[in-house]
């Protein structure tokens, strides 16, 4: 019909009858207004805020016309993104203007909870919503069980202290559960138990001569996106770029070496590289030191006498060699990890030649495995061997951001006896119990184990949770093992969700409050780093919040505090007001809006109040801080940790981790068991001294590979604003910017060799099944995926969230499938991290 019409049109033109025949506006109306000069862009203003689409946390500016957000760019003051954003920045406009946003509070009217059960939400007033929540909280306190309240935090700003720390502690609950371990705690484990820093690293891409990227794609995700995008073109000219990843990612596509590793075997490859570096004498002697007589004794399979080597900035290189490296020849590693020995040798030699300007960029793919802690250590140990740790052209720690800390002393004054006692009770994630060491920062139970919360809830261990408040989170979608989470959330008597959309988590909620869209509608601040600069960036409402959205981190606690005060419990109200007076006037907040402003001023004051020279950007006063929206530090000073300043037990970079030894022994002692028992309970295989060095562990697979012959590779799309951009139509339109993917479909990448064996053709619908669950998506035959593995990006598979995200919102039908359903529930117990990489998920695939 279209064609016919076109022919008709052509004919019409020929006969000169077009305008009248078609009855279009005769265009004269437009013509008058449009003739003449180019008017150009209508007036507007660039206003600063922060993008939280990924963990780069870019300082940005939003162009505002007539009170509407219309465009996004990087903050022009940023030394981290140089004024540019990645695709996520633009994509976020479809979040603030998402037609499916929740506009007012609502409550559940169907008491039955479960996936696919319609909650029958109805709108309610703010008063009804807050009164209901406050009543439930008072019930808990009156029953003497405030610990049964739990806060679940997803993405956050640093104003989180109010909702995450102050509120539960003054109320009397230990249960503030962050999402941190879902992101990459095992990655931090690798850095902490070698160089003593429980954090992500920065990278000096401008100066690097060898970039080894391991288990991530820096131009797509992983914390320095625009900065890496800007630099990669230069890096491939000035340096060698090698990428370890079972699938060809963007960096690998542009780089020199692609090492398509068998998932989970990363330590084998890393140790083989170490083997070559040591046996060929290529390690960086300025960092590691040398044999006292200069004679290299590292020979395959042979132990070395410790007394023959004098280390400089490191600890235990000989012990490490003797325990874990000497036998891991490239040939042996090839058999384990399936990367050709000659390629491992070539990479090692290239790194050795470029040392110390070597950037070892370790990402979650290398680490977030059931036994991933030692993979992370093994990869990061390479940064030590080549002297690229904390050095020019290598990986870096970061400059300090001198913001204020939470006034803990004031908080404690407002804790009554019940709160003091109950906020110290064990947490619902069971951190620090024998089988959940969660050894963040060297402490037993030092960090969160978010995925274990599902078990805590289901087993009522250490006790029952009766009330959960979640904000900017979607734990039932974003944790692997979604089925377990669905069952756990069904158990919660009273669940509150502060959210922009009716997400999967929301579908289990009793009360839902409309949350502000981060970046466009709320105040907050973040700390971030890239390109040697540490940055503090503000989030600001660049436009008036659409709908009745509130700031989850500050307005919610304040308004609940008001309600609790009405009910005779004034400590939260009094405490919050006392903790955060206006730093300029000393005035206490009387409204939730004032409170938000004062907290933000309190935390950031050292950057703008002029009381102390904090280095970096000079900002004179609060108004200028709001207008600039951000502060840059001075560039990080290379080798700040060298010279015995690493925060490890030995004060050195540890190949033999005294720090981990102390942590493991501490945990073992707490439970009166041996370290070997701790290792066994944590599903690790190492016994004895091996537990204290980076070593190879056979990867754990959840399932029999005879039945499930493929390992499943999960990764992050460059269009993922974590789990929050999948109701944006642009996400689907441009999904093909992920290598191998096709727009508007959930693409499971499978090598053509494997597909042929299974009789699967490109574009076929396939069912993928694991021990965790099953789902249907579209097969994409692609040469960029290692045979024996299949890959799909996280993101799709929503069964709620919105009309675009779900195939059928009303009936809870998913669009594509959620990787976290296929990836069975599991964790890396030593770090507390979710285990979603490393091929713990094994699957079979059948044509539908």
């Amino acid at each position, binding site marked *: 019909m279209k064609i016919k019409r076109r022919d008709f049109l*052509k004919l019409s033109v020929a006969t000169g009858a077009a305008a009248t025949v078609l009855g279009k506006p005769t265009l004269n109306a437009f013509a008058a207004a449009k003739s003449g000069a180019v008017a*150009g862009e209508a007036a507007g203003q660039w206003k600063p805020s922060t993008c939280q689409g990924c963990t780069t946390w870019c300082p940005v500016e939003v162009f505002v016309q007539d009170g*509407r957000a*219309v465009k996004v760019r990087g903050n022009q003051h940023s030394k981290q993104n140089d004024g540019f954003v990645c*695709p996520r920045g633009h994509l976020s406009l479809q979040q603030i203007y998402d037609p499916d946003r929740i506009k007012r509070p609502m409550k559940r009217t169907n008491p039955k909870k479960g996936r696919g059960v319609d909650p029958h*939400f109805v709108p309610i007033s703010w008063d009804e919503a807050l009164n209901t929540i406050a009543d439930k909280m008072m019930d808990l306190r009156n029953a003497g069980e405030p610990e049964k309240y739990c806060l679940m935090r997803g993405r956050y700003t640093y104003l989180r202290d109010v909702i995450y720390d102050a509120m539960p502690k003054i109320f009397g609950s230990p249960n503030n559960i962050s999402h941190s371990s879902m992101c990459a705690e095992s990655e931090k484990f690798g850095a902490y138990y070698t160089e003593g820093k429980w954090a992500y690293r920065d990278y000096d891409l401008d100066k690097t001569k060898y970039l080894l990227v391991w288990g991530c794609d820096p131009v797509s995700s992983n914390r320095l996106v625009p900065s890496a*995008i800007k630099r990669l073109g230069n890096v491939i000219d000035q340096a060698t770029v090698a990428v370890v990843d079972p699938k060809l990612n963007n960096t690998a596509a542009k780089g020199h070496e692609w090492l398509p590793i068998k998932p989970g075997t990363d330590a084998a490859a890393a140790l083989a590289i170490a083997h070559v570096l040591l046996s060929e004498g290529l390690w960086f002697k300025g960092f590691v030191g040398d044999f006292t007589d200069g004679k290299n004794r590292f020979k395959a399979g042979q132990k070395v006498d410790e007394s023959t080597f004098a280390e400089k900035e490191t600890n235990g290189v000989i012990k490490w060699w003797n325990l874990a490296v000497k036998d891991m020849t490239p040939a042996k590693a090839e058999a384990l990890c399936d990367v050709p020995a000659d390629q491992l040798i070539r990479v090692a030699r290239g790194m050795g030649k470029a040392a110390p300007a070597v950037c070892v960029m370790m990402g979650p793919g290398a680490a977030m495995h059931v036994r991933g802690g030692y993979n992370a250590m093994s990869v990061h140990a390479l940064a030590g061997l080549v002297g690229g740790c904390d050095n020019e052209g290598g990986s870096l720690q970061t400059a300090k951001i001198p913001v204020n800390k939470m006034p803990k002393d004031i908080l404690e004054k407002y804790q009554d006896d019940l709160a003091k006692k109950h906020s110290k009770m064990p947490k619902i994630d069971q951190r620090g119990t024998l089988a959940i060491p969660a050894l963040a920062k060297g402490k037993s139970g030092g960090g969160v184990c978010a995925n274990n919360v599902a078990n805590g809830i289901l087993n009522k261990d250490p006790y029952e949770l009766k009330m959960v408040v979640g904000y900017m989170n979607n734990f039932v979608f974003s944790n692997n093992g979604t089925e377990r989470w669905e069952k756990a959330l069904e158990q919660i008597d009273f669940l509150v969700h502060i959210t922009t959309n009716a997400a999967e988590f929301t579908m289990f909620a009793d009360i839902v409050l409309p949350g502000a869209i981060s970046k466009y509608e709320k105040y907050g601040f973040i700390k971030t780093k890239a390109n040697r600069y540490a940055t503090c960036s503000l989030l600001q409402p660049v436009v008036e919040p659409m*709908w009745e959205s509130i700031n989850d981190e500050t307005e919610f606690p304040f308004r609940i505090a008001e309600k609790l005060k009405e009910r005779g419990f004034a400590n939260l109200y009094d405490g919050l007001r006392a903790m955060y007076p206006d730093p300029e006037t000393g005035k206490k907040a009387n409204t939730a809006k004032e409170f938000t402003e004062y907290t933000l001023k309190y935390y950031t004051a050292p950057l703008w109040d002029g009381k102390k020279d904090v280095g970096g950007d000079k900002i004179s006063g609060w108004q200028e801080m709001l207008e600039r929206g951000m502060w840059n530090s001075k560039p990080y000073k290379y080798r700040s940790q060298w010279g015995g300043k690493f925060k490890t037990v030995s004060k050195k970079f540890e190949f033999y981790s005294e720090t981990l030894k102390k942590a493991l022994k501490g945990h073992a002692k707490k439970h009166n068991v041996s370290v070997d028992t701790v290792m066994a309970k944590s599903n690790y295989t190492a016994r004895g001294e091996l537990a204290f060095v980076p070593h190879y562990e056979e990867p754990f697979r959840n399932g029999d590979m005879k039945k499930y012959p493929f390992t499943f590779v999960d990764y992050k799309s460059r269009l993922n604003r974590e789990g929050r951009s999948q109701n944006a139509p642009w996400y689907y339109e441009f999904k093909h910017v992920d290598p*191998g993917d096709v727009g508007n479909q959930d693409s499971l990448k499978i090598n053509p060799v494997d597909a042929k064996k299974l009789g699967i053709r490109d574009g076929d619908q396939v069912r993928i099944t694991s021990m965790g669950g099953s789902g249907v998506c579209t097969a994409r035959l692609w040469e960029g995926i*290692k045979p024996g593995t299949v890959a799909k990006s996280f993101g799709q598979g929503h069964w709620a969230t919105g009309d675009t995200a779900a195939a059928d919102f009303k009936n809870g039908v998913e669009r594509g499938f959620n990787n976290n359903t296929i990836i069975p529930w599991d964790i890396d117990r030593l770090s507390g991290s979710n285990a979603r990489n490393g091929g713990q998920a094994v699957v079979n695939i059948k044509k539908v």
Partner: protein
Amino acid sequence: MTQYAMIIDLRKCVGCGACALACKTENNTALRSNGQTHNWADFIHETTGKFPKTGYKTTPVLCNHCSNAPCVDACPVEPKAMFKTKDGITMHNDERCIGCRACQEACPYSMDEVKRDGAYGEYSVISYNEEGEPYQALFSDSKELIPGCTTSGTHIARAAGATPPHLTRYGHPEYDDTRRSGIVEKCYFCDHRVKKGDQPYCVESCPAGARIFGNIRDSGSTVAKLLKKHKPSVLKPEAGTQPNVLYIGEYGT
């Protein structure tokens, strides 16, 4: 004499997608419908070789602003709706367009209907706005996902005061900031910006600095200097269109 041109440095490009999304926010283009992508900027992707010697390349695409433009030749309207400006932009006048789609048919870089996308090498620089259909379908739907609780497309557009709500308002004598139904549309090198001394928005938004825009007839311009230094390539040279979007550098190593 001016001939505007864009150079895309594939060495710097990482295929991230920012340019195409930035374009959608600048030019308020619609979502895909009826096989029309409305993507004035887009990408094609090529995978070559066999595992593990796999090659992969992304090529950003947009209107080539050809010196020998078949779309202009094909335009049946007098004076032409699709025409060349004196500074070499392939321009389109929204008012004169009758929606016959002869330009789309003639353009070697356009398709009548894009069924797939750049993953299969498919894209179209010219899109057609179906007669009588709302341009912004997402914001023309009044359905509330949860009645009384969630908003709707029309509600959000009304509350924001524009369709789409993120509409970037601009004015240009030849084309509107959103286009009416029944006509074609494409990239105009952001002439509404260029005339004000700014860069096209995809150039300004590229985080890799991979897009360079300027007058190739001016020997002092960056584009002219780059063309001296590099041997550029164009898409479908065999079509003889003399594109003014030129590619330099190798995407991979």
